[in-house]
């Protein structure tokens, strides 16, 4: 049974569907129950509840002109559209809309790779292009650039960048929105805009200089609902000559402060790709996710002192923390950087140890990507799903998906040493008895901050499980906010919650977004509710 958009009658919706069919063709408008099912978010924690963000249908244009016509028809009938690129933003909503009853605007058919230039090192693509497709294009045309991609690689460079997605190489590339250069956007009234140098007729620098002249508006179209991006350019990294992977370990818990300082300096000089953090002592403290008795004892009486944690680390006899440096570039340059990194850490932590784990000329071998991970080398893969699909650890109760929860922490050792306390307090606030490790290892997806936080598993069978996991997610976010953290990206389920925490000066940022929304999308046609931005008529709908 069709879930209609708010305030839209069945008769009006039918008229809108007919209008959409007239624009894109009958076969590219989907309203049957079977077809709508394929647009549901399989990782929705609201699965099969009345709150699940089920769409009313989907419409799949093949061109920019069709997108414009669909937008104009949507305005006429007041049917909200939710644009997706490849629809694979799993854990962050997938292909399902923010607002129940929206019509998904499926841009997968717009899948042209318009240009890849390995002289000036950029690409220009449409939304339906996947990282696999872009990688294949580079390989087929023997181009001398790397694709910086997330794991998994079946998503869209445009879709990923527009949700502030990330990759794994140098800072200049792995912030995918930061690496973009130039957009083409269909506005909520159907008008077409090109940003930056794309606004200058005859320009050949659209993918080279993102600012053009005047205010830069590109940010409005990421995690926003002010337009539909139909083309986007990205800077690309020239293929490096060689790779070197080196592990650096520090023996004590408090040494993390020094390790972070050294790695920050390497990162901020542009000398390394994404550092990969680890904690040998934490690995030695869990078996199949179950904490060993020593750790349970350490954590039994509340957050332990640094002295007690150090005693625990010494007893385990393995380093407290490690980090894998990923060095890309000319052979002699990366060898020199590796020597420099060791020297800098040794000066601060005399007991630090080092291990070179890989050194190879590029392109990478299959053995290297198997060992360290495809995504560090720009090779698309879905191998990451091994972490969350059925495996030896979860065989008795495999998950149906997960919702990530990554708080933004300052890039300091002190923040890492205290983050576990924040998580522990969040669990305790909802009566959740979990042994939290004091050894937090962050992800440095976005180069200037750390991300950390426990995700939650979802079930498509057990609504009570999902309800409880949702309570835990809320408790975590509420506690994160007390510490000044909170997420950088989240599923529509939690977007109102997350945005409510960004509340400086009585939510003045959100109110600014709403002012813009009212000006450019008075009918609330594009993704109502996306990251907490509702049209005027719906602002009481926040959850």
């Amino acid at each position, binding site marked *: 049974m069709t879930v209609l958009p708010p305030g839209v009658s069945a008769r009006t919706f039918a008229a809108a569907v007919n209008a959409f069919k007239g624009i894109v063709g009958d076969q590219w408008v989907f309203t049957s129950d079977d077809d709508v099912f394929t647009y549901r978010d399989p990782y929705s924690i609201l699965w099969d509840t009345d709150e699940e963000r089920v769409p009313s249908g989907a419409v799949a244009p093949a061109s920019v002109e069709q997108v414009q016509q669909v937008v104009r028809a949507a305005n006429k009938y007041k049917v909200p559209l939710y644009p997706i690129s490849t629809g694979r933003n799993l854990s962050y909503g997938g292909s399902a809309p923010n607002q129940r009853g929206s019509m998904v605007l499926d841009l997968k058919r717009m899948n042209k790779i318009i240009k890849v230039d390995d002289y000036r090192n950029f690409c220009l693509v449409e939304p339906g292009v996947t990282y696999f497709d872009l990688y294949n294009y580079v390989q087929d045309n023997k181009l001398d650039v790397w694709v910086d991609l997330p794991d998994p690689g079946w998503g869209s460079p445009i879709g990923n960048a527009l949700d502030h997605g990330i990759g794994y190489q140098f800072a200049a590339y792995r912030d995918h929105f930061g690496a973009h250069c130039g957009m083409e956007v269909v506005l909520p009234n159907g008008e077409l805009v090109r940003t930056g140098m794309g606004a200058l007729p005859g320009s050949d620098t659209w993918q080279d200089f993102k600012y053009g002249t005047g205010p830069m508006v590109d940010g409005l179209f990421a995690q926003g609902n002010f337009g539909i991006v139909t083309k986007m350019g990205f800077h690309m990294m020239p293929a490096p000559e060689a790779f070197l992977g080196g592990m650096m370990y520090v023996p004590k818990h408090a040494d993390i402060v020094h390790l972070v300082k050294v790695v920050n300096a390497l990162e901020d000089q542009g000398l390394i790709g994404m550092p990969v953090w680890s904690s040998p002592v934490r690995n030695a403290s869990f078996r199949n996710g179950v904490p060993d008795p020593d750790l349970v004892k350490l954590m039994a009486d509340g957050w332990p002192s640094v002295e007690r944690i150090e005693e625990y680390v010494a007893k385990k006899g393995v380093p407290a923390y490690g980090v894998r440096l990923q060095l890309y570039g000319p052979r002699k340059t990366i060898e020199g950087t590796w020597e420099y990194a060791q020297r800098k850490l040794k000066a601060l932590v005399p007991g630090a140890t080092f291990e070179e784990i890989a050194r190879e000329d590029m392109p990478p071998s299959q053995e290297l990507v198997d060992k360290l991970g495809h995504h560090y080398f720009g090779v698309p893969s879905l191998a990451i799903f*091994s972490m969350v699909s059925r495996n030896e650890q979860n065989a008795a109760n495999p998950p149906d998906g997960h919702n990530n929860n990554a708080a933004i922490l300052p890039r300091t050792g002190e923040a890492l040493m205290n983050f576990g306390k924040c998580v522990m307090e969040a669990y305790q606030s909802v009566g959740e008895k979990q042994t939290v490790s004091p050894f937090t290892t962050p992800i440095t997806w976005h180069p200037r901050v750390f991300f950390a936080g426990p995700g939650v598993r979802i079930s498509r069978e057990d609504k009570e499980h999902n309800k409880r996991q949702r309570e835990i997610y809320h408790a975590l976010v509420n506690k994160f906010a007390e510490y000044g953290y909170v997420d950088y990206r989240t599923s529509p389920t939690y977007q109102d919650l997350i945005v409510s925490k960004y509340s400086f000066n009585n939510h003045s940022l959100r109110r600014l977004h709403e002012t813009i929304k009212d000006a450019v999308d008075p009918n609330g046609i594009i993704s109502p509710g996306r990251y907490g931005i509702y049209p005027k008529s719906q602002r009481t709908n926040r959850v």
Partner: protein
Amino acid sequence: MIGKLGLVGLVLAGIATAAVAATPIQPRARLPGDPPAGASGAALVQHGDHAFQYYCAPCHGGFEKNLPGTHALAVKYKGERPALLEERTDLTPEFVTYIVRHGIEGMPQFRKVELSDANLAAIGAYLSKSK
């Protein structure tokens, strides 16, 4: 993070240096068009092979170690059935279609816009061919 600290802090530690023979990266399959209208029999199976390699093999292939779909089925069936879909003899086009359009566990469902009915039929024909 998969352990108590969730998905975000997954650790890759303890990787030992080892001398390895350099094998080129296994190529990825290219986006297939739809099968020719009216394709059947061996032609449909051949097209289904191509479509399988593009749409399915990144999880269910055997071209790399421990791909997640193959690994999940190995854990599920414990040797009672092949973990590789291409080695199964009990798959029907109807079953393949149902799973692809509905998803299962961590595998999401696939939309017609990304995987057409025609290509899905070809994949079904490929996986259910006599072996």
